[in-house]
């Protein structure tokens, strides 16, 4: 400490101290009112870069969450379409079993054939199901309807797959290749569902003994084989939904922990900061009081 103290020194020191106290209070007020401890990178350079990384991770997770939700909706649409196809196929099977037992005359069989043909169109309608403007059964050709209504049973889509990214480096295939079930129709003789249905209708209409014979034997076998394929496809789709669901759960856990880390880095600890604010306020008041008293004192006050 210096030997001589001049009023100018006292004034300067008081002013410095007042400024420092007020500066600290302003800072704390900012933290409290914004709810953030890092208002600019220099407050905590490493923390600022962490905020950028964590925020980006969080946005990424919410993208993945979005993808998984979207995938689940896609799969739900596809599954309900496949259930529809399953019900229709069961109805065809009932007709087939009726037609095969020989108690119906040809006109009954013709009616049944008509029904089978109508049901075939319904199946193609279900196959043309769209999710958010995209055909779910066209492979990656999502803007092309996989089947046309009418006689042409050719598959118009492709065998490519579409996937949804559900995590870094993790993606789930959401396309179901329905052409492995429906096939390309009678002309292709691929034994797939559409071929089978067309054959059943043809055999019903044939009026021949071989035709009626085939209804109960080869046709029924083929149809049962097709139903088996459908079940497999449904199981695959269900598996994809499960994968998406579990990705979603994992994602939520991660989001919770990253949100917590982000909050720890950037959010104001209200309790601690409020206490600090009260302390700073007290210090500021004390500095003001001391300043107001000391700066006024001088020998002049006591001289006559």
């Amino acid at each position, binding site marked *: 400490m*210096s*030997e*001589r*103290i*001049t*009023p*100018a*020194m006292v004034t*300067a*020191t008081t002013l*410095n101290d007042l400024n420092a106290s007020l500066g600290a209070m302003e800072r704390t007020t900012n933290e409290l009112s914004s709810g*953030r401890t*890092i208002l*600019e*990178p*220099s*407050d*905590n*350079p*490493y923390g*600022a*870069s962490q*905020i*950028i*990384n964590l*925020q*980006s*991770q969080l*946005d*990424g997770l*919410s*993208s993945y969450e*979005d*993808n998984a939700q*979207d995938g689940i909706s896609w799969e739900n649409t596809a599954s309900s379409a496949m259930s529809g196809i399953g019900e229709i196929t069961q109805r065809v099977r009932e007709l087939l079993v009726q037609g095969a037992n020989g108690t119906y005359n040809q006109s009954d069989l013709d009616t049944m054939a008509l029904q089978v043909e109508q049901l075939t169109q319904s199946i193609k309608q279900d196959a043309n199901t769209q999710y*958010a*403007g*995209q055909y779910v059964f*066209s*492979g*990656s*050709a*999502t*803007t*092309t309807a996989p089947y046309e209504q009418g006689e042409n049973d050719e598959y118009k889509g*492709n065998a*490519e797959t*579409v*996937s*949804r*990214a559900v995590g*870094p*480096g993790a*993606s789930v295939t959401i*396309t179901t290749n329905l052409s492995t079930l429906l096939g390309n129709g009678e002309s292709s003789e691929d034994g797939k569902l559409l071929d089978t249905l067309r054959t059943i209708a043809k055999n019903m209409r044939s009026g021949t003994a071989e035709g009626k014979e085939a209804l109960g034997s080869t046709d029924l076998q083929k149809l049962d084989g097709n139903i088996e394929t459908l079940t497999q496809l449904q199981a695959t789709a269900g598996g994809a939904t499960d994968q998406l669901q579990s990705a979603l759960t994992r994602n939520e856990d991660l989001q919770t922990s990253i949100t917590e880390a982000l909050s720890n880095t*950037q959010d104001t600890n209200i309790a601690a900061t409020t206490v600090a604010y009260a302390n700073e306020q007290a210090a500021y008041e004390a500095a003001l009081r001391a300043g107001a008293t000391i700066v006024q004192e*001088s*020998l*002049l006050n006591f*001289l006559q």
Partner: protein
Amino acid sequence: MSIPTLQGLQTALSGLIAEQTALDTAGNNIANADTEGYSRETVLLEPNPPIPIPSISAQTGMGAQLGAGVTVTTITRIRNEYLDAQYRAQNSSLSAATTKSEVLEQAQSAFNEPSSAGIASQLSNFWSAWNKLAEAPASGAAKEAVVAAGEQLVTTFNQVSSQLSTIASQASEQYNSLAGPGGEVEDYAKQIAQLNGQIKLSEEAGQPPNDMLDRRDELLDKLSALANISVSEQPDHTDTVTFGEAAEPLVEGTAVNWPQELGASAGGRLGALADLNSPTGALTSLREGLDSVAATLASTVNEHLETPFFSGETAATLAVAVISAEVQASGSEASGGNEVAQEIAALRGGTAEQSYAALVEKVGSDVRTANDEQNNLQTTVTAINDQRQAVSGVSLDEEMTNLITFQRGYQASARTLTAMSEMLETLIEHTGVVGL
């Protein structure tokens, strides 16, 4: 030999004059108590040559010397040159740190992080837009959104870049206006040179020009904020000032050598401004860093695409090069293909983002270091200034005490004069008259 009859009057008079000078000086100190750069003054007194009185004692034969009052030798200012040199050295560093911190704070606010409007957040939106496109690869709206997010991102890059270059050019403008013709350096140097001449004349006449010395010291203080200075006082009382490691002294006698090239570590405001914009300076490296983030972003995105999404390789020239119809979600023709969009969405958290986060960390720690340095130096400068004030500052309490002392001294001298007068009255009026 006896004492001159009127000697007592002379002695009392010299006391009156000395006390009056001291009172005037105290009055001047009080008047200048709040004048910047003023050093308190004090009166140096010395006794007059005594009058010898030989052999006054008949018994011992010893003589004596009779004091003959007091003379004012000079009025001097109280100042410690060593503290001045210290103050100026630290003041240069403080001014450099303050400048650095000011400029870097501006650069930091150009980045506008952390916020929802900064590059980081725009970058994140950009990846999210690509992810949306992967969900609906054929959607025109999703492609539109990718282009919009891209546009917003490049605009932010362009803005930050242009703000940084504005800050850089403002720094060099400031340098030029301080160091250029008619700038502060030249102005201070000319005033110091002029004062050198006047001080030399006054000192030659034997009159220390306290006020001019104070003004010269104050100008040197101000000059020290612009760059490092060293001051050497010459035998003729002129100051030779070297400035910012320049080859020739800035002021020598009454001559000014300016403009000159400053050295590599010139210090002060000028040194800091030159440093920030130098090829290795903090501002330059921030601008280069931002350019490199932009280049990385463009190349990492473009390498997944046949038609480049971004054009330009610097933050200032980065632009979106495609319209929404040209945005590719897939390399194949299939409308539902989304692998390219997925690849680009997966660039989130990649090199571009990491190097940007590192850049934000760098600007933050640059500012923090500069602020810390500034705070430390401020404390040092304040402490040295306190010491200077302790030596040179006017203390009103002290001056009041002095006033009383000198006033009492003046009263006593006047009383002495009265006593002398009465003594002489006895001699002149009453001598030779007896018994009346």
